[in-house]
């Protein structure tokens, strides 16, 4: 293999003037983390709402929830990001569209919102499954105690449902982190994009990609570790996950 390895490249200056190549990658990691965090909050919020809606007795509510999930699940993430980034600003009234287009870091906001809504359909599926997995008696007991539907969800159903779906939510969180790389197509300079940039500046393809791979692996491992800690911390005694 006639490839010139140069692992010292990470300590050489990058042509952007922002420090070494390692700084370049770490700046990318920061955008990856910021995008993933905002996207995860959006996914969890909308996913929880839509997931709950799909378990309500009202037929129209279930239909609306199903439509949300089918819409965000059946269009590729890349196309969804293009819709948010290129199409939506044109369809809005002129002033609003212009404001969106000139927003600082617009690719970050669009990317995070787009990825968040895309992931919300998956979270909604998990939330629905979690609620469905509870014995009917729990909701009935809530009603028998005189709680309203909202109170039953808030104090009885959701605290249990969220604990049950923590493991699959962990993998959705990891998917959210991975999906942030798709936002490079709308110009977000996250980790994968910076890796590409480093490769184009320095021609050290494999060093750059190896570094990105290691960073993603470390990120995955730490998130998994934190989520396991969370699972242990909130586990209910008497269940398999509890003590």
């Amino acid at each position, binding site marked *: *293999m*006639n*490839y010139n390895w140069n692992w010292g490249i990470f300590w050489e200056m990058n042509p952007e003037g922002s420090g070494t190549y390692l700084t370049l990658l770490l700046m990318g990691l920061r955008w990856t983390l910021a995008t993933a965090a905002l996207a995860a909050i959006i996914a969890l919020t909308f996913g929880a709402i839509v997931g709950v809606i799909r378990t309500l007795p009202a037929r129209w509510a279930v239909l609306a929830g199903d439509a949300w999930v*089918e*819409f965000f*699940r*059946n*269009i*590729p*993430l*890349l*196309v*969804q990001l*293009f*819709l948010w980034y*290129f*199409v939506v600003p*044109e*369809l809005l009234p002129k002033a609003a569209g212009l404001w969106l287009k000139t927003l600082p870091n617009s690719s970050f906001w669009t990317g995070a919102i787009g990825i968040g809504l895309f992931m919300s359909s998956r979270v909604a599926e998990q939330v629905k499954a979690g609620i469905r997995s509870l014995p009917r008696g729990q909701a009935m007991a809530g009603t028998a105690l005189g709680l309203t539907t909202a109170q039953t969800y808030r104090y009885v159903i959701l605290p249990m449902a969220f604990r049950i779906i923590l493991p699959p939510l962990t993998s959705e969180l*990891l998917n959210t*982190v*991975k*999906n*942030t*790389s*798709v936002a*490079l*197509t709308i110009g977000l300079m996250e980790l*994968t994009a910076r*890796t*590409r940039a480093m*490769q184009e500046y320095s021609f050290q*393809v*494999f060093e750059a*990609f190896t570094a*990105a*791979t290691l960073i*993603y*692996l470390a990120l*995955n491992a730490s998130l998994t570790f934190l989520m396991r800690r969370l699972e242990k911390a909130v586990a209910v005694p008497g269940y398999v996950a509890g003590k």
Partner: protein
Amino acid sequence: MPQFDFDIILKTLPYLLRDGMSFTLTLTALAALGGLVLGTLLALMRLSTVPGLATFATAYVNLMRSLPLVLVIFWFYFLVPYIGQVILRTERPVEVGAFASALITFTMFEAAYFSEIMRAGIQSIPKGQLSAGYALGLTYRQVMGYIVVPQALRNMLPVILTQTIVLFQDTSLVYVISITDFLGAASKVAQRDGRLIEMYLFAALVYFLISFMASLLVKRLQARTAIIR
């Protein structure tokens, strides 16, 4: 509101379908098939008692599943020419076509996901069936090939097809290495004629209809092939 020009879709439809959609569908089908074969092998390796095999398969699957697909696409895009050079013992890195590069990437990537599905399928087969096979004097290859894997495939068919729908959507990511798949074709027209709105809305609609119909079919299939236990 801007002026819409939906004629552009009719005019470019032959190009979108012939150049774009045929690439997307061929890539999806071949990568799903290749990924399934490779994934089954990985699952068997993971469950085997031969030392080293299980470790290797587990490491491979976990690595692939921890990385973003976009990064993996870039990895293979740059790596495949060098691998070709080592295998074919040529002077320079081998030039690999866009289609071959994409196919290798998606096959290798999907293999990790299919292997997890097949592992679940294989593990769902009662142990007694394996024992019965061995008691009849069948070899490992025969037990797996005639008893375990066919049943695992059947049980997991809905999940495999759902994963294939995900793969169909994911193939749009070849955009990052400038390959003309369906989205790539739509995007080329969009940029050439300045018709971003029409083309991206149309692309979204087509992806939605295909994925939605396919998932409805999978649901029906699931109801029909479910084994009542």
